[in-house]
């Protein structure tokens, strides 16, 4: 399949957008803005997916990430010490090392992407979403189910960790190691 020039343009444009917005995540002053730049990056990637004939997945990604980032924003406003996550802030450490690591990762992976030979077997024309559905309920059933169990597990785990109140009152009540010195405890 030979992508047309439009595809090239779109992919390049969204690609630049995804990278730039990703970069801005860590360049902005406010956590809230960071969250929105992250969302932009995701949306750009989602758009690239759509260009690459994976419309279904692209849309899912855009929808999901919009939702997630909204939650993240709310979360920050609700919980974090940086009130409303709106105040300007830069909180970084080991900056040099991080830049080296980031650039290094980029260089290595880009090198792999550009230099390495990958098989040339483009996607055949057809409804990719149908193929996905068949895969999902066929060969990769187990993967799908496992992912479902994982989602269940994370729900249980997240609630267990984050809930402040449980059915039995304060969720934090007694959630600690047993006292090593029982007698002291009895006396007190």
């Amino acid at each position: 399949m030979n992508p047309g020039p439009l595809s090239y343009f779109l992919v390049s444009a969204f690609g630049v957008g995804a990278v730039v917005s990703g970069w801005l995540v860590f360049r902005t002053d406010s956590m809230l803005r960071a969250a929105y730049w992250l969302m932009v990056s995701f949306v750009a990637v989602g758009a690239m997916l759509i260009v690459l004939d994976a419309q279904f997945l692209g849309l899912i990604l855009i929808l999901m990430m919009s939702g997630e980032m909204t939650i993240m924003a709310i979360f920050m406003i609700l919980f974090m010490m940086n009130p409303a996550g709106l105040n300007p802030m830069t909180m970084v450490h080991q900056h040099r090392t991080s830049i080296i690591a980031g650039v290094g990762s980029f260089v290595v992976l880009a090198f792999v992407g550009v230099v390495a030979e990958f098989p040339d077997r483009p996607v055949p024309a057809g409804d990719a979403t149908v193929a996905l559905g068949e895969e999902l309920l066929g060969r990769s059933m187990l993967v799908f189910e496992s992912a479902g169990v994982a989602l269940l597990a994370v729900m249980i785990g997240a609630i267990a960790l984050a809930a402040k109140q449980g059915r039995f009152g304060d969720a934090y009540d007694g959630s600690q190691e047993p006292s090593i010195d029982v007698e002291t405890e009895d006396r007190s």
Partner: protein
Amino acid sequence: MVWLPVLTPLIGGAIILALRRSQMAARVASVLVMVATVAAAALVASLEATGTWSWGGQLDLAVSVTGFGRTMVVLVPVIATAVIGFAATNSEDDRSIVKLLVALTWFVAAMELLVIAADFLTLLIGWELVGAASWVLIGHEWRDPQRPRSAREAFVTTRFGDLGIYVAAGAIFAATGSLRYDDLAAVSPGWLAIIAGGLVLAAAAKSAQVPFSPWLFSAMAGPTPVSALLHSATMVAAGAYILIRLQPTLSAVGWFSPVVIGIGLTTALAGGMVTLAQQDLKKALAGSTSAQYGLMLIAVGAGFTAAAAGQLTAHALFKSLLFLTAGVALHASGTLDLSKLRLGSALPRVAVLFGIGALALAAVPPLGAAFTKEAVLAGAFHAGIWVGLGTAAAGLLSTLYAARLHMLAYGPGPTRDVHTPPRRGEMVALGGLAALTLLLGVLWLPGGDAILERAAEGAILSPTRAETILSLALVVVGLTAVAVAWRRGRLVTLGMPARTRAFIAGWWGIPTAARVLIVDPVSRLGKWLFIADRNVLARIADSVAAFAEYTSRVLKRLVERGIDGVVWGIGGATIQGAEMSRLADDRGVDGTVEGVASGIGEAGKQSRRTQTGMSYHYYTAMMIGLVVAIAVATLWR
């Protein structure tokens, strides 16, 4: 049967020990045991018995009573009877007497085993047991810290010689797979040389030849009967005995004869002068023992073992007599200093007995000792004119010191009263020995040569007329010289400067040399090695551990602080260094100090800051790990 001469004193010793509650019984028993031993020995000697005792495997203890052994096996208990008899009656109520008697008895057993041994293992057993027994005997008075030390010196010196037997035994075993004397004949020349070397070493050490002679001085720390026994037919005799016994085979080794003669002649001359110069009666006698054994070695080296055997027998008799009488002198006057004794007037009968011994020592005919000495001289001349002349000189020396000793110890003198006159039993023992010494004069009778040759199963050479005249002349010269010196009152000092005399009397400085060259270096080496062991070897292990500890501490910091911390640390140090040099530039020396101080403070802060153990360091480590993994997987395929 053949074991009787060993078993009798061995079991007898145990009986004496069992009787220790009654001193009297023990004393009597000890003499009886010795008499029984003499009887047993005589019986065995007449039967020429042999026997073996298997130790399993390839080890058999073989014994046989043959050759000179027949004489020796009897001679040892005979002299021991006298000595033990002397010892049993000599001391008053003394609880340790039993121990002494038992040790003496067992000592005889060990010596008898040595004498009847027919293979190197048995020989070695007897040889070492004799040494160990001598340690017990010399160190008898153990409460005095000096005596055990002397005993140790004596034992260690002779044990060094024992190594020779070990080597000889190993060599014959390697060569033939057997340890028997009989198989020596089958040994190849190379191994035989090693065996000969080992035996000569062992014999030289045991018979107190140069350079081992000084141990005899240490042996003087023992009680008198011990010295008497040690220096006559036992212990010292072992060296000469084994050479006499094995000379026929060993002489096949080219260097055997010259080396043995050389050792013997050197010792005879050096020892003679030591004796002459000695101021202490017992030590003088000890020196003369070395010298006399030197004469025997000359005879062995020359090939006339019968002469050596004869000399050994004669010497055993008169030397035990001399030692015991020296003991009487010590008891009587409380000293052995030759310048203070002169007990002739106080103890005339003892003086006569001592005189008999001294005459024998001086080789005055018609005593047996004179006969054997002339045989030795003849043999020496046979070996070479210079050997002969040297031996003659040694003979002159023996005449000189014998006469000197007699004059100084038991010559007429001012001493009238003595603390402890000899007891009757002691006198009997002395008399017996003197009688035997005199009895040996029978050798002068026609056929004396033949008796010796038969007794020793070896050769003897009759002296030529010239040799006889020479030796008699030397005896006369010697006696005259002593008489002159006596007259002039210079017998004690011999007209020599005191230091020279002390040097010679102290065995030509050999003990000092041995201490400086061997004993001290070895013990210092031991100390050094110990220090090295503690401080180096043990530390190596410790330092490996310490290194691991250090690495782990560094790592512990690293893993928690993150690899990043190192980079920071190095970077920080570089910056600090640059900063410091700048400051130094700006503000001179003061600034440098300030810079250092602030640098250290900053470094401390820096390290505190980096010692956080934060999760982002985990991240850094992971990324580095990823890179390294890629590198490894790429490079090492």
